[in-house]
């Protein structure tokens, strides 16, 4: 009887053994989660974030570089803060900030380090480094911070900030990770791939205390970090800052281009802000402040704002008409029967004279001649054919489409074509009398300051242009994107420029530009313009280039609410030209005048709290043809919004 108990015992032993084997089989073979956890335990992935490329100006001056900073990371389960208050004082943060940072870190992962405080300066780091030893779970990581050598060109340089969730999702491939920096605007965004370099990854084995015990798989999977490529720009940093200073207390843009290359020498968006503001860890506060500023400093006016070109468009009209043979250089028009007034009297004798004095009636006739410069007797059909021809010619100046500058969110502007008017009025229901406002750059035309500067460059070049661009070298000098090496022709004969340019020279020397703004010893060719503004005082425009016979610089200056191009915009442009050509300012009188001029529109109402810059400004700045048509009564409110001048 008792002898049989051996079988019970043996069965029991066997059952336990079998149970253990099954358990081991499950643990080791069926369930692979332990394998993953083991790797997570002992294999640490160390990312090496490369330095972002630096940005230089045309003379080798450093514009943007990286400052080494330290990020403070926290591993929640290890973190034990005995005296939270003291800890907060040490890091100069509020108690609730501490709590929310801790909660955020813990919700990401309790076992992995999360960002606690970004970008501690070297001074802060030195101050707290030793003390932090007493706080387990906190560690420092080397990082870098974008730093700008001067508070200028903020919008075009752009800024970097932590990649957003949406951007993470949208990215092609899987390069970016949570917490990575990402170029958000300007050059930083346009050249993100070149600037960022390539992140290096190192796998190391670590023991339970996080002490590195050597490379994993002998470094087979490790990749070296590759530093970002430097960008060499065509910007003249001194000129840029000088132009900036001239635009203080003004809203508008200055764009200067080297005509022979298309390189942008200076690109001012006023009002400006210090780009360093968006590089620090106070990014969000500063960003909100800028976004709520009623003058919209974050709006990159040279490429995003658009205006009617006004009288500056007359040079294009003259060139187009000459090329089409609608007029000749000596064509004279009388003012009779023209529904437009002239600024003076008797400017209708020739093209140069009309340009010099910006004669409205003359260009009314020019445009009319262009539209009817065909055999069609029906004015509707003739206008249609003429406008199509005109449109194709003007489009060659880069108007109506994006130029392709190396900045994101360039606005394409508007150049009305036949289809557009067919839509508005109906096919063959419109003719010259419906569209004549185009003749002096009004109506449905919309252009950006950059495009106007490009027009100046085209005229300076006598007929061709290179797409304006900021970066002339990626990684090394003279290595721009290939599209910036393509010469674009306008198809206008050189001789026609020789007709128009003397008029432009005359405009500066004895025409629409104020006498005070003239620059001694430099022959500037220019054209002023006034862009009608339904919201307030008209915007002042000036385009020009110099020296007229051998242009080194082409420029467009836009001063919002500056009214007369010759009074507000031309002095700014001329001073920039003088500084660029002479390296100094001799005309102190006009410099003094313009520095003290304030054209800021008065904004009484508090800033609209709309974060979408693009939308809110569209409403304010752009009177698109459709909006105009829909909102006709706007003109009635013209008087109610107080103008600046």
């Amino acid at each position, binding site marked *: 009887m008792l002898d049989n108990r051996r079988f019970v015992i*043996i069965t029991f032993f*066997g059952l336990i053994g079998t149970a*253990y084997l099954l358990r081991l089989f499950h643990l080791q073979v069926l369930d692979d989660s332990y394998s993953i956890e083991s790797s997570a335990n002992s294999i640490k992935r160390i990312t090496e974030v490369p330095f972002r490329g630096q940005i230089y100006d045309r003379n080798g001056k450093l514009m943007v570089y990286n400052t080494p900073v330290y990020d403070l990371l926290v591993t929640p389960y290890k973190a034990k803060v005995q005296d939270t208050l003291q800890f907060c004082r040490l890091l100069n943060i509020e108690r609730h900030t501490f709590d929310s940072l801790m909660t955020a870190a813990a919700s990401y992962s309790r076992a992995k380090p999360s960002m606690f405080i970004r970008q501690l300066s070297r001074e802060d780091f030195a101050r707290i480094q030793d003390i932090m030893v007493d706080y387990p779970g906190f560690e420092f990581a080397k990082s870098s911070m974008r730093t700008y050598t001067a508070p200028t060109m903020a919008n075009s340089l752009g800024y970097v900030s932590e990649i957003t969730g949406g951007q993470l999702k949208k990215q092609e491939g899987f390069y970016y990770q949570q917490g990575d920096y990402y170029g958000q605007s300007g050059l930083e965004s346009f050249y993100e791939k070149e600037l960022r370099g390539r992140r290096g990854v190192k796998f190391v084995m670590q023991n339970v205390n996080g002490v590195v015990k050597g490379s994993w798989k002998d470094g087979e999977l490790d990749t070296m970090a590759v530093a970002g490529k430097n960008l060499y720009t065509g910007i003249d940093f001194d000129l840029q800052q000088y132009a900036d200073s001239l635009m203080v207390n003004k809203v508008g843009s200055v764009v200067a281009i080297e005509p022979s290359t298309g390189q942008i020498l200076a690109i001012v968006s006023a009002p400006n802000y210090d780009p360093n503001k968006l590089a620090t860890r106070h990014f969000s506060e500063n960003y909100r402040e800028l976004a709520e500023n009623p003058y919209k400093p974050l709006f990159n006016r040279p490429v995003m704002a658009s205006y009617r070109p006004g009288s500056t468009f007359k040079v294009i009209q003259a060139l187009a008409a000459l090329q089409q043979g609608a007029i000749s250089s000596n064509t004279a028009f009388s003012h009779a029967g023209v529904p437009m007034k002239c600024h003076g009297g008797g400017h209708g004798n020739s093209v140069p004279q009309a340009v010099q004095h910006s004669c409205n009636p003359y260009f009314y006739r020019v445009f009319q001649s262009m539209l009817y410069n065909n055999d069609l007797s029906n004015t509707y059909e003739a206008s249609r054919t003429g406008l199509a021809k005109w449109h194709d010619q003007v489009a060659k100046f880069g108007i109506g489409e994006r130029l392709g500058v190396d900045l994101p969110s360039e606005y394409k502007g508007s150049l009305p074509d036949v289809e557009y008017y067919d839509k508005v009025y109906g096919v063959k229901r419109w003719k010259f009398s419906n569209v004549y406002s185009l003749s002096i750059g009004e109506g449905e035309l919309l252009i950006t300051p950059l495009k106007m500067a490009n027009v100046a460059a085209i005229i300076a070049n006598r007929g061709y242009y290179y797409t304006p661009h900021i970066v002339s070298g990626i990684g090394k000098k003279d290595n721009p994107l290939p599209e910036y090496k393509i010469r674009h022709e306008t198809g206008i004969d050189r001789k026609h420029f020789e007709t128009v340019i003397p008029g432009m020279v005359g405009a500066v020397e004895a025409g629409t530009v104020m006498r005070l703004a003239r620059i001694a010893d430099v022959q500037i060719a220019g054209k002023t313009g006034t862009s009608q503004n339904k919201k307030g005082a008209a915007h002042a425009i000036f385009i020009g280039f110099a020296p007229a016979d051998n242009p080194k610089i082409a420029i467009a200056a836009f001063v919002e609410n500056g009214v007369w191009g010759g009074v507000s915009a031309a002095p700014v442009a001329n001073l920039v030209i003088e500084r660029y050509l002479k390296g100094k300012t001799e005309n102190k009188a006009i410099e003094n005048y313009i520095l003290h001029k304030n054209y800021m529109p008065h904004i009484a109402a508090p800033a609209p709290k709309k974060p979408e810059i693009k939308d809110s400004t569209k409403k304010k700045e752009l009177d698109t043809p459709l909006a105009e048509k829909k909102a006709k009564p706007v003109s009635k409110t013209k008087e109610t919004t107080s103008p600046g001048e």
Partner: protein
Amino acid sequence: MKNIHSFSNSLIQNQQVAPRKNKTLTQNLDWIAVLIYILCVLIGWFNIYAAVYSPEVPTDIFDLSHRAGVQMMWIGTTVLLIICILVVDYKFYDTFAYVIYGLFVLLLIAVLFAGSEINGSRSWIKVGAFSIQPAEFAKLATSLALAKYLSDPAVSLTRSWKDYVPIAGIICLPALLILLSNETGSMLVFASFAVMLYREGMPGIIPAVGMVMAILIVLTLLVLKWFIALGILVVAGLVIWLMPKGTRKNGGTTATVVVAGLMIAVVFGMDFFINNVLQKHQRSRIMVLVDPYSDPRGAGWNVIQSKIAIGSGRLAGKGFLEGTQTKFDFVPEQSTDFIFCTVGEEHGFIGSAVVVCLFVGLIMRLVVLAERQRTRFARVYGYCVAGIIFFHFMINIGMTIGLMPVIGIPLPFFSYGGSSLWSFSILLFIFLKMDSQRPYTLSRT
């Protein structure tokens, strides 16, 4: 002693069996058991080497400056010990069983006062550079004493309850002393004598009740005690309801109610015991069995990390000296109590299965050997050996795979440490010696 000798001599002579003196030391030794033993010790040694191996400072397995080298020395001394055991007459253990027992009880008392404290338990005696743990040897002494007591033909586990008292005494005395020196793990090993007692006639209800108790304890940890009580009552109600009418009238109801009441009392008692009597580290060790993640950085750490180590070995393991979990100190006590993690991580399921099979094979072999003994003394002792090795195997491997609470007892023949290797080797080889002398003994049962 002389009397016994002459008595047995005469018996053998009377029976005309082979001469008493064996020709060689290893004659009649059970080679299956010995082979498994040798495999276990060697595999253990290699795994200790792997557990302490540091890829940065590679050392030789024979290097005496680390544990693998020291273990090699222990193995060497163990071989000498085994030779001694094989030389000594098997009757010695029978004769001196109580003396040995008494000696170790005295030693256990001595460590309480004069022992050196290591890892919070005052259970070590320092002899020069080495420390030995009398608790490890107490199992052996107790086994001998129990065998000696039960070898008395007058003692029976089936006839009278009176004989249980000395048995309980023999077991409890060293167990209590070990508990006092804070070696709870070694104390629990004394439960392994249940295997032998069951074989010798202890009613099956006793181990059954023990297991029910264990299950209730686990339930107490898992579920609120009121729910368990409610559950027991519901089951009791069902039992009574489903009972045949006759049984119900014949005291069946009363019996069920009494059993249910006792169980509820156990649950509440356990709850009280766990929360108010147990020390904090003991409580957390039990809690961790139920949910290792209740304290992932504390008591649960060992369980989680050892499961990760074993689990990450997959089918074939990471390879000798390639384990990351064990190498980088994620698993604590990896060369001693958690040595099985190294096996699991570096040799995978195949390696683990080999080790489990070696143990189950050895234990079953010991049962077979025990059953073929002619004396009750040898059989009882054999069952004690099988029970002790089984208990260590079950608890130690069970805890590394999360099936048992973390109880710090070594894996026989594998774990680093002289005391443990010596005691298990002595334990085993005394029995193998007895077995080898089987032809010369006379059955008395």
